[in-house]
């Protein structure tokens, strides 16, 4: 299993992400945004951070990086792509995932552990989890207020593309940022491009607050 972690100017979760995949047995390496070669990976990860200082809109400038043209081609051919936090925002701006991201409803940067409910697991990313299962993963963002119009939302539900929703410890809906239907993560129709605001790479060890991220990261190894 070979993982390529893309690094943009302003990315800051690259090392944690590389470490998380290596910890579960994958080989991972960095690829700088100016490069044109993805180095033949099984999975491309766009990590969290503030690519290009979040100028204009989060992820708006990163989408024009040379490497993003390669990522688009890779995804088109069915290659697996995962976007975490800012990576998710970049995938939305690139059109690789449907919908858009706006400021959190309360305008605050929210950084804390948050419970999530698994909605669909018939995909590679969440295959090690069960529908309805509740996991606890950190979120850290100011723009996680996911928006999609009615038609897009219906399509997401019809095709089992809604992956995760924010909830409380008992699984009741609890919405930290105003995201439509409390959606925290989605995938594309072909189920090879995944995006989520929470940070599974930050939940790999109990000493750091929890290890619910392991099952997510490991989904790609199978």
């Amino acid at each position: 299993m070979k993982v390529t972690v893309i690094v943009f100017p302003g990315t800051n979760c690259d090392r944690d992400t590389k470490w998380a995949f290596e910890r579960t047995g994958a080989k991972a390496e960095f690829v700088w945004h100016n490069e044109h070669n993805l180095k033949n990976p099984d999975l491309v990860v766009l990590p969290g951070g503030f690519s290009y200082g979040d100028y204009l809109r989060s992820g708006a400038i990163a989408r024009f990086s040379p490497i993003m043209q390669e990522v688009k081609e890779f995804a088109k051919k069915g290659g697996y792509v995962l976007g975490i936090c800012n990576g998710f925002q970049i995938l939305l701006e690139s059109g690789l995932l449907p919908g858009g991201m706006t400021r959190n409803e309360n305008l605050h940067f929210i950084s804390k552990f948050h419970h999530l409910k698994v909605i669909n697991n018939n995909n590679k990313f969440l295959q090690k989890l069960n529908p309805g299962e509740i996991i606890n993963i950190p979120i850290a963002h100011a723009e996680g207020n996911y928006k999609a119009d009615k038609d897009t939302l219906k399509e997401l539900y019809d095709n089992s593309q809604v992956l995760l929703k924010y909830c409380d410890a008992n699984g009741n809906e609890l919405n930290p940022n105003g995201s439509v239907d409390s959606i925290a993560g989605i995938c594309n129709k072909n189920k090879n491009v995944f995006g989520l605001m929470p940070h599974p790479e930050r939940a790999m060890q109990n000493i750091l607050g929890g290890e619910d991220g392991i099952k997510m990261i490991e989904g790609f190894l199978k």
Partner: protein
Amino acid sequence: MTVAVNVHLKKGVLDPQGKAVHHALETLGFKDISNVRVGKQILLEIDTENKEKAVEEAKKAAGELLANPVIENFEIEVK
């Protein structure tokens, strides 16, 4: 020629910044302001004297980068 691209969140997309500013204005006593929307204005210096051409150029820039059509609308304004 200076052309402004005004970008706002679409109607129906909640504008948290607008809401917060509205609340502050209410607190200050501006009772007649019933709604506030916060957007951004991007000024483009375009090297042409042809107004149509400038507007065309600005529209293209807005459609491709300056606005996200999923959540935002834009208007072009020649200064």
